[in-house]
């Protein structure tokens, strides 16, 4: 439900990137690249390929102080299925999840269009 394991994997990854950015005092794009550089050689290329697509959106949302849960909704890995409530691992953002999801709707639409263009 609500994106299942894809959503959870996204929340963990974005959460780590956001925390890395804080630990190393850098922006999320650099933090994501730092994360990819930690992986074994064989996995760095696919990691960077994914980062190239999503890093700008993740960075913008994190810059706007959105939580990793909200970021993952904005980039389409998490969703709210009919009859369900939005799931969150990190503390609920100020003003609640629903308001945050409304706030990030434009980004969601933009990512959706980008995904369709690239056939994801």
């Amino acid at each position, binding site marked *: 439900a609500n994106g299942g394991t894809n959503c959870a994997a996204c*929340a963990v990854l974005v959460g*780590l990137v956001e925390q890395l950015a804080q630990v190393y005092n850098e922006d999320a794009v650099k933090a994501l690249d730092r994360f990819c550089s930690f992986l074994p050689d064989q996995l760095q290329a696919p990691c960077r390929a994914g980062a190239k697509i999503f890093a700008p959106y993740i960075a913008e949302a994190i810059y706007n102080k959105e939580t990793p849960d909200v970021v993952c909704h904005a980039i389409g890995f998490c969703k709210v299925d009919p009859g*369900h409530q939005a799931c969150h691992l990190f503390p609920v953002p100020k003003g609640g999840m629903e308001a945050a999801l409304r706030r990030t709707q434009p980004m969601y639409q933009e990512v959706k269009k980008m995904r369709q263009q690239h056939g994801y």
Partner: protein
Amino acid sequence: ADICNIPGIKEICDIINRAFNSHLPAEDLDKDGFSTIKTFRGSSWRGKDCNDLDSRHHPGARPINGDVLTDSNCNGISGLDSETGLPYEDLLCNGTEPRGMILLGDSIGAHFHLPPQWFEAKSLNPSVFKDLLFILENEIDWPELSAATGHMNNTFGEVIKGPVDSIYMRLRERNRCNHRDYQNIGVNGGRSGSMNSTIVRSLVRNRMSDYPALVNIEVVGNDVCNGHPDTLSHMTKPDEFRKNMLDTLQYLDGVLPAGSHVWLTGLANGSLLYDNVHDRIYPLGSLRNDITYTDFYSYMNCLEISPCAGWLTDNSTLRYLTTKRAFELSDVLKNITATSEYKNFDLVYLDIGIDEVIAEWEANGGEGWQLIEPVDGFHINQQANALAAAHFWKQLEKEYPDLMGKVNPNNDRIKELFGDQGGY
């Protein structure tokens, strides 16, 4: 479109499917069920094959012609004693009742572990991901360090901490002729149904040409664990559990060499998981102390991906009802043990005893949460695996000493002559 249908990719998919679905080694030239590589169900899981071109040569085999020329059972003992003119296998192993250790079970038996360092921003660095591929190729399990078949020193100290102790190591210490005779057929998510349909069928033992084995069947949670919101209605019912286990045992009677022993482990009391960790900080929340295990459990339940909605929940009634069903299923195992007889093995039952292990740990000044896997909050960790091995061994020694076999009086001679017997 299935990516596995693409020529070239198909062969790779076949290898992965063979390892991950049938629980048999992906690389096994002679198809005897044993491999020379570690991962993909290789020697991390079953003793290393010392001759992958001859299926008669594998761990657990009875020696061929006294192993004078080759080490057919891969236990590192071969050749002829020049003084007596007898094969060393005959001299050092005959009459010592060699036996293998085989685990059939779930992720607890396979020893599931995700490194907490992967979930802590401050701990992330290249060295914590050094063994990432190895870990994935072993299905995120650590059978080489597990309570049943652990067989090596813990050289992965950066991502998994704690001592190693196992039933196999103790069986080998008791009789060095047992070297390399282990099989860990633990499968993440394993339950009584999959035990009967696939897991037990991945056991490799030749009734005629292999030594007997001590087989531990442990499915300690997944029959009551699932991620469904209506979790109770998806749990295995006692009559279904009984049928699955009886079918499994009947199959085993057809494949195990005479003189084997089967030991059934009861289901766990998973309530202790929540009790011990619910208000502690989850690794991903360690930077700001803002995520507890209760938050993590609720999140998994919200996404319906929890490995156990019945135990990993703040709903105490649900936890109670899940434990109740687990105890009912354990009663089925006790009843089967008391009422069934098999031609090729005797059958015993032991409680899993994690409660006792935790109580003992606490009596020695420890805290319960220190024995639980930090990332999933659902398994026991390396320290607890080692303690569980010692606990089981003590129980076996006390209640069923026959299962362990004799102490081999030739152990020192074997050490002197054959050193580490080829290692692992």
